[in-house]
């Protein structure tokens, strides 16, 4: 009986079966603690070791010089700003490409879903080194071939060092799988055709339906896709380095030779910055009106893959993206009190 009715009351009889359910409950709790401890040590040990390395100089004792010198370090501000700009542009471009495509295939023939999924997943099987080799070849070949056409200027413009559009294009390709997975998971949780029809029946045009009905129900997924892309761009090294640009990840590597402690300090700070940004984005994407159960970006899943794509600190960044993305199950108690007159 005790096993059937999991109440807090103990068995009435001393010779009753000694609550196997209780034992079963304690065992997972014990293992859960052990697993959490091991995982915590696995993640925290390198971080703590790195922090100790940055603040402890043999012979000098405790010093924060590695941190205090970051802002004045040459190239820090520029590279960080460049990476954030590239991330913003990449997020915008990727969402602009994938959101309409996925909505269209939800409303169109189902067979198109597989096609779009395959196209979006292809970058997962193409190593960044292969991608950058192809891009570099085109960038070398293009100006010579199109030197007498307007495309010549285009080839130069996309390689502008202050804002290399070619990196945005490359990062968009790399981010496609994660953006697709996150948004697809969100769209699966929403009955898109019926919602569209309901909105159309209420007099809404197609653009209004997308902006005011579909997108608000994808806020969690949009946030998830955004910070997966952000993490990827902040940590991406291979493409940027081989194309000769110097965003944040490349700067960290370049500064590590001369300033080892500062390099590690910057890596730690970049993790904190990434976590802070992810926190902001996740909070923005999990507002009280984001009430689609199961539409959270955690369903996207490829955070591990995101980590593997980057280098020079990207693992930590992308990994943190995965941990920061939590499903936003609707909380009835958190329902907002509508403000009369609020649009």
């Amino acid at each position, binding site marked *: 009986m005790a096993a059937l009715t999991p109440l807090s009351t103990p068995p009435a009889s001393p010779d009753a079966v000694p609550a196997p359910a209780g034992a079963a409950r304690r065992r997972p709790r014990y293992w859960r603690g052990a697993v959490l401890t091991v995982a915590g040590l696995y993640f925290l040990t390198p971080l703590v070791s790195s922090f100790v390395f940055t603040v402890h100089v043999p012979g000098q004792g405790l010093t924060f010089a590695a941190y205090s010198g970051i802002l004045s370090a040459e190239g820090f501000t520029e590279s960080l700003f460049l990476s954030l700009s590239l991330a913003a542009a990449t997020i915008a471009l990727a969402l602009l490409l994938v959101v309409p495509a996925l909505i269209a295939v939800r409303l169109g023939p189902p067979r198109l879903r597989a096609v779009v999924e395959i196209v979006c997943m292809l970058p997962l099987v193409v190593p960044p080194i292969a991608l950058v080799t192809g891009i570099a070849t085109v960038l070398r070949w293009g100006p010579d071939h199109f030197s007498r056409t307007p495309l010549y200027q285009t080839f130069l413009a996309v390689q502008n060092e202050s804002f290399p559009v070619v990196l945005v294009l490359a990062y968009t390709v790399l981010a496609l799988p994660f953006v697709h997975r996150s948004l697809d998971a969100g769209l699966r949780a929403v009955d898109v055709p*019926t919602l569209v*029809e309901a909105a159309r*029946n209420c007099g*809404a*045009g197609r653009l209004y339906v997308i902006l005011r009905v579909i997108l608000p129900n994808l806020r969690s997924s949009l946030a998830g896709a955004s910070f997966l892309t952000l993490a990827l761009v902040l940590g991406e090294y291979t493409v940027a380095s081989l194309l000769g640009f110097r965003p944040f990840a490349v700067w960290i590597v370049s500064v590590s030779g001369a300033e080892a402690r500062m390099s590690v300090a910057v890596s730690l700070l970049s993790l904190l910055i990434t976590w802070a940004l992810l926190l902001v984005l996740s909070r923005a994407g999990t507002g009280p009106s984001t009430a689609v159960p199961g539409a959270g970006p955690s369903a996207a899943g490829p955070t591990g893959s995101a980590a593997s794509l980057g280098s020079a600190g990207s693992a930590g960044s992308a990994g943190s993206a995965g941990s920061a993305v939590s499903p936003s199950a609707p909380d009835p108690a958190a329902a907002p009190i509508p403000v009369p*007159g609020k649009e």
Partner: protein
Amino acid sequence: MSALPAPSATRPGPAGPASAGSAARAGSGARVEFRSLRRAFGPTVALDGLDLTAEPGELLALLGPSGCGKTTALRVLAGFEQPDSGEVLVDGEDITRIPANRRDAGMVFQSYSLFPHLNARDNVAFGLRVRKRPAAERHATAAELLDLVGLPDHGARFPHQMSGGQQQRVALARALALRPRVLLLDEPLSALDAKVRLSLREEIRRLQLSLGITTIFVTHDQEEALSMADRVAVLNAGRLEQCAPPAELYERPATAFVAEFVGTMNRLPGRLTGTGSVEVAGAVLPVDGEAPAGRGSVDVLLRPEGVRAEADPEGTATVVSASFLGSVTRVLLDLPDGTAVKADLASRDAAALLPGVRARVAPGPRPVLVVPTTPASPVPAPRAQARAGAVDA
């Protein structure tokens, strides 16, 4: 400003079965006509030349089995499907090519389809917001409609905080918010449990009567259709089999399909005598109407309540089972030729009809239909009237 269409002065007040004729409500609501609608999805023909008219202010139920085209017809009317040919008219205006968002039709979907990110009040006011109506008007209308559907205190709740029945009430309020000329109900009760379904269907009927709005209601549940609708249109394979008030549909089905789809029916082998009568289960019944030509085998359709049975050791039928249904008991009997026949008897008369008991069976004076022996034949057949005189089975 009143949010709702003015109630019809000719509308009967209390909700109830569709006893009032459509003509009594003429003048309110819109007239909806389907003219020769055809719609095919690849090799599957969903609508095959559908001609149907919903009179102003009436509740017309589209009834039929899955795949008969009833939902397609509704979606064509809503503008979600384009017919391959034919046209849809509302008050004489051809709306076939008008986009869905410009049609004056409110729709309630089977799956509620409330917007998850909006609370009940904003869901109801969504259409008004699309049309850029002032906030005060939107809120007043939403509050009035939520009150109308019995949810005055649920305006701040989100869809996931409401039950299925509550969500469907909100969906109904949303469909009415724009004061549509036509209300479309696409199996709105099928996702609800039995008790909620019963109360909500009475509520929908009450609202429809009080608002006088032309309503087209798709369902595969004949009980819903017969209890709510002024008229029921039975569809089969994309074609209209019969459109008639519920009682007429039940009492005088035009085709074998209607007869067997609506209610319970016995199909018994019979033989035309050539004199305007048919012999079935040992009884000779006059055919009411045009008799099928010649002689030969036919099938005779009888309602279970039109079959009498009584325990008799001399009888040749055998009771197979008896199901107590309250005031009525449905008795299943085997005739000597192996045909099974159902009889609905008053429970007090069926007490002796226990399984294995011998019994006498006789068709009572109930309308029947004589059809060719092909079971699926849609060819209308004349009705026959049972002649008095029980014959031993």
